[in-house]
């Protein structure tokens, strides 16, 4: 495994280097700059220029890039232009919210996705399959924000069972915190689950026709054992890849669900920093999102190798 990770290292570094250039240039292509945001719409040209100089935005681009990259390599992620606070502090303050939501949403996504997938890939009866297919299609057709809004109207406004606005960190009060977390996590989980279940269902159905399944059946293995020991295990590969991609997305910040449930995770921080042209913050958030995606892909490959002996990491 170590050899596998060492072999991957150069490509990871190359991806991160390319990302650093894109993350640096992309926000600067957009009109406006942080000085404009700070000065406000009624500012005079002199007021704006004075702020621009104080932020060092009047220096050549490559000087700004090298200064920033040098800082990042030394572990200094920079200071937010808009909030005047260190970027690492700003990200850390939002990290718990994003991790809590991503973890619980992943749990919901995996449970619902694999549950529906196994049901759809196992049931032989026509009505049963239709029920699972209908559930899958409905969930696939319903975007996360709509699921979120329906949950808000039903469980937060009509029957006020759960809070629908704001958050309390689990580290502060787990009992209250989980109540704030349930609906947004469920909305996210439900939105991501059907793509996993669809994939799993299809793979399981085709695996059921394989010879080793017939052999197990001939040897008298119970249907449950065939499903879970033989069919599910060998069918999980594609679902694991899909789960890996989805989990990576979730940890990058769930922008829309965070917005409608008024949670303050990394997704919202990214939106605010883009709107305010807070270059320093945008750059690190983009780098972070790419890093999380790369890491989740690595973990996916490790899990695949553990699940399927035919997959060799060192090959």
């Amino acid at each position, binding site marked *: 495994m170590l050899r596998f990770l060492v072999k991957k290292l150069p490509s990871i570094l190359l991806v991160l280097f390319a990302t650093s250039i894109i993350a640096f240039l992309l926000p600067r292509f957009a*009109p406006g700059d942080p000085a404009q945001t700070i000065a406000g719409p009624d500012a005079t040209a002199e007021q704006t220029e004075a702020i621009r100089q104080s932020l060092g935005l009047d220096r050549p681009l490559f000087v700004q890039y090298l200064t920033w990259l040098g800082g990042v390599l030394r572990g200094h992620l920079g200071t937010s232009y808009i909030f005047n606070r260190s970027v690492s502090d700003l990200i850390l303050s939002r990290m718990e919210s994003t991790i809590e939501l991503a973890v619980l949403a992943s749990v919901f996504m995996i449970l619902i996705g694999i549950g529906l997938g196994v049901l759809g890939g196992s049931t032989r009866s026509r009505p049963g399959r239709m029920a699972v297919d209908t559930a899958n299609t409905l969930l696939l057709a319903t975007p996360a924000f709509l699921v979120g809004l329906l949950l808000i109207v039903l469980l937060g406004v009509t029957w*006020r069972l759960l*809070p629908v606005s704001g958050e309390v960190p689990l580290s502060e009060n787990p009992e209250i915190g989980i109540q704030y977390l349930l609906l947004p996590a469920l909305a996210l989980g439900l939105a991501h689950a059907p793509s996993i279940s669809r994939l799993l269902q299809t793979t399981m159905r085709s695996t059921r026709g394989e010879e080793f399944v017939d052999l197990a059946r001939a040897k008298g293995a119970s249907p449950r054992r065939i499903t879970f020991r033989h069919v599910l295990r060998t069918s999980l590969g594609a679902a694991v890849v899909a789960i890996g991609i989805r989990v990576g997305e979730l940890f990058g910040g769930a922008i829309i669900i965070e917005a409608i449930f008024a949670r303050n995770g990394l997704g919202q921080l990214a939106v605010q920093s883009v709107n305010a042209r807070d270059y320093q913050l945008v750059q690190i958030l983009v780098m972070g999102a790419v890093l999380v995606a790369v890491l989740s892909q690595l973990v996916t490959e490790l899990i695949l190798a553990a699940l399927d002996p035919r997959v060799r990491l060192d090959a």
Partner: protein
Amino acid sequence: MREVQRRSRVRSAVVAGAVALALSVTGCQSAVKQQEASSAGAKPTDVGVLTIAQASDIQPNNVLAGRLGNASWAANVFETLTRYDDQRKPQPLLAKEWKVADDKLSISVTLREGVTFQSGRPMTADDVKFSLDHLVKSSSQVAFIAKKFSSVDVTGPTTLTIRFSKPIPNIFDLFEYAFIVDKDSVKGLADGSKVIGTGPFLFKSWSPGSEAQLVRNDKYWGPKPHLDSITIAVINDSTAMLNAVRSNRSQIAIGMNPVDIQSMASNSAFSVVNTSGSVYPLGLNLTQPPFDKLEARQAVNYAIDRARIAKQIFGAAGVVTDLLWDPTSPGYPKDLEQRYTYDPAKAKQMLTAAGAEGTAVPITVIGLPQNTSVAEIVRRNLEEVGLKPVIKVQETQGFDQIQIAGKLGTAFMPLHGLNGLGASTLMDSLPSLRRGNSSKFWTDEYQALRNNLLAADTDAAYATALHKLSEYILDQAFTVAVVQALGQNVVAKSAHELTWTSRSYLDAKSAYVDH
């Protein structure tokens, strides 16, 4: 046997999970009840928490400028020398009294005694001088007024004299804006780490882009506030803001979507509070055809159906006026409000006479929802009279950038906050009117009329000067006031005794909340 045990473990885990989930929903502590209870306070003397949902983040680094994000908290932590009452007459706050010299070239201010900063340090005239100096360097809309001071002389611990070379009739607009900051901790404003004023609430914490908390200042020089604390939740998403108010998490919503405001207005548990609004101008560039011709500019005024725009886009918040001044401001020339009536036939005739019929008119529009809606009706109105307008929507940041650079093009639609300011201040703070405006308009007569307004020494003289200036602006038609819209905040009826200053800042020192 092992299989049975395994199944039993799985079942136990499922049951335990379900129980945990049920407990979390129906268990000892309910987050929903906690949210409702947090605003409890049956009488004014009781404790309570006021929660405010607002679309913009707070900006401690810009506390001296007018910013929507600061409307909820700044006037609760900081105080000004004076504050306008409902009649826009300055009333004492940190200043106990003041006297304008007979030659109107200085004002002597005596401060209230016994006022301390929240750090415990007494507030003195030196702090006022420091704050005024600090304001000059800020991006405040009224910084230009402070730049006219020739000196600020501290004459005693609680007395100072501000001198100027020309009379400054709008000095109380400056006082309304100039929060007195603590010179020892002013650097903490940059990142919000130390925010210290003299107000009834202490600035406890700020999580940028997320939430800020104020707590009662038990050592406040005035009557003690009722509320324990004020929580400000930054909620950018309009749906989330609506949810926050409907689910009783927040008692006040600042910056709510106008469509949602209309729906909340019909809810008996809420009221809508009107505050100082905004003006939506259509700027016309005098250096580019067809607006280099006066007749073409005036024709645009006749072409615009202001009443339709006000009603259709802003409903009850829409104000139909041809002027860029706040209708409640002193000397407002009401008789000029409807100078140009909607008359497309006349507009068409004037455009033909000016040889402008069929001219392409690119209109740069700031990309805010209301602006683009207003622009669509303006486009249609201009098409009806024979022009060929093309809307070019620019994102806010990009628009501001080219506005400051003075490169908005032939026609443009910015958005200006009136911020409770009088005409004598607005003529220098509004980008559409001040020197260097994007219409490229400036004449000696315009300068003279502006000077006359500043030199007016009585209310009657001020009204006359403002009338003449307004008439000139309307005649020259370099900027067309399309519509004004009042600011609107949604307030739950469970929140009482909230005071909104003339610049729409919340003062919650007497506020309390109940169910």
